[in-house]
């Protein structure tokens, strides 16, 4: 009946505040930018509420549902014919919201709320934002250089990226 006495028995698994703040802020950006139609705005708003609940409580399921909602809002805005730049911003913000929330929930589950982790959270979000911005800028420049606005260019780009991705998966 010997027991292992660590604080893990009462581990508080809520994510750190930095992750919560970043996830909610990025989600808000997605909602604001993608709210070009009433439907996209409504879906985005609901998703934002679910995301903030999920991240605050460290619930992975709620966070996933909310993030899917944010991506859905971006898709709806795209269907309604939103311009490429706002689309990239909205999608980037949705990715950041998802990434920051997921990272925070992971940290909370592994290390607990009491552990010092702000630096790791901020570093991770920083890298994600930097990579996202770079990808978006490169993507837009290529798209703009081909600038007839032909969807075919975008399709070619997508396919190129998809090829790279498949290559990476096979490694």
């Amino acid at each position, binding site marked *: 009946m010997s027991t292992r*006495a660590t604080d893990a028995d009462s581990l508080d698994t809520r994510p750190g505040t930095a992750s919560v703040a970043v996830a909610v802020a990025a989600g808000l950006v997605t909602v604001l930018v993608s709210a070009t139609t009433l439907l996209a705005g409504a879906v985005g708003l609901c998703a934002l509420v679910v995301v903030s609940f999920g991240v605050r409580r460290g619930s992975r399921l709620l966070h996933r549902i909310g993030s899917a909602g944010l991506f859905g809002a971006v898709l709806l805005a795209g269907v309604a014919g939103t311009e490429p730049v706002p689309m990239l911003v909205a999608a980037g913000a949705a990715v950041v919201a998802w990434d920051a929330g997921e990272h925070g929930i992971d940290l909370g589950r592994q290390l607990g709320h009491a552990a010092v982790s702000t630096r790791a959270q901020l570093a991770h979000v920083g890298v994600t934002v930097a990579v996202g911005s770079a990808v978006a800028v490169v993507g837009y420049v290529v798209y703009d250089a081909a600038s007839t606005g032909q969807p075919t260019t975008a*399709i070619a780009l997508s396919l190129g990226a998809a090829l790279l991705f498949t290559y990476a998966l096979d490694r």
Partner: protein
Amino acid sequence: MSFSSIPAAATRAAGATDEAAEFEIEPGTVVDRRTRRWYGVTVFALLALGVGVLTREPGLLLTSAFGIAFAGYGQFTSPPPVEVSVERSISDDAPDTDDTVAVTVTVRNESDRTMPDLRLVDGVPPKMTVVEGSPRVATALRPGQETTFSYSLRARRGRHEFEPTTVLARDASGATERRGTVDAPDTVGCEASLPSQSVAFPLRSQTTRHTGRFPADTGGPGVEFYATREYRPGDPLNRVDWNRTARTGDLTTVQYRVERSVSVVLVVDARQAAYAAPAPQARTALDAAVDAAGHAYVSLTDAGHDVGLTALSPTDCWLSPGNGDEHRVRAREFLSTEPALSPSGPDAETNLYAAVQRIRRRAPTDAQIVVFSPLTDDHVAGAAIRLDANGHRTTVVSPDPTADDSAGHRLAGVWRSLRLADLRQRDIPVVDWDGTEPFPHALARWDGGSR
């Protein structure tokens, strides 16, 4: 230090994220795990691609390209090597029981790559409790950079070794998690101090040869008048009752009540069964028994008796009966750091018969025996009866580990009280102690039982 066990905290960390990740990692080796955290973004990108092709919206298609590139990003990063050094500074490596020990850990990135996401779970000794702060940290470290975190532990009796520190290093995208351990051996030895106050520890009446403070039921040299008897050649002249000789003409010798010291062997039950506790984090019966043995040792040696210590345990341990300052130091060490009395419990079964035989072989023939046992099974009660029958006057001190929160626990409590009743019926005094109140109170409340 054993490398074969994963630190408890690490097991917990693994269990929290990945239920199947209960594997052992030796220091120096690493295990990689794919987190698959970008799969959701891939799904979104492919959806956007499909919808974009259907609606011919350039924005959607560009977004899709963006998403796919992001998914690919997760594949192109690789986790850094787990080359960190962990250094612990411990405020007090020989604390007293229940002291707070501050631990400060310095982690340094020894590799030449930046660690964008470094998580560390320090190998807190399994029996220590973290009372303040957290033994876990997450940070990002450039090559050569270091970070410091600290937490406090509550000291418990025994030698505690820090286990290897678990390190989780993720790449920047978080797609791969590399898990390793870093060996940073440190030890905290917590010696329980013996109580300073002695109490009236009940011994049974005794017949023995050596002078001491315990009044025996025999006549001889002493202080208190006991009896007179006919003079025998060799009796000292100053003990002859001259008044009586003057009156009757016969030589008579006065005898006084002899006060004798007693050898006492304190036997602590340290079998697996004695590690029972009323609640998962509560004090085990063994810890209570060691506490009580400390009180008994101090009280009995203060009263002039020779006291020895031993345990009913898989490993052999013995401190011969003795007295004095040096012996007290050894007794303190015995109760604090003897492996047989370690707070974490033995892995092996105890051969109780052999343990009792060892005690019989070593204990002085007239030694009294005090058994400290929770009496959670019949065997120790049987051993006490056997020792008593072999001429060692035996007393049992029993810390109560039973709880009454379920029918099974209550039944165990009933069985235990039946064992106590059985022992008392056989004229073996039993001190029933609930283990929460101070031991001297339990002794004071005790009516003395049958002597």
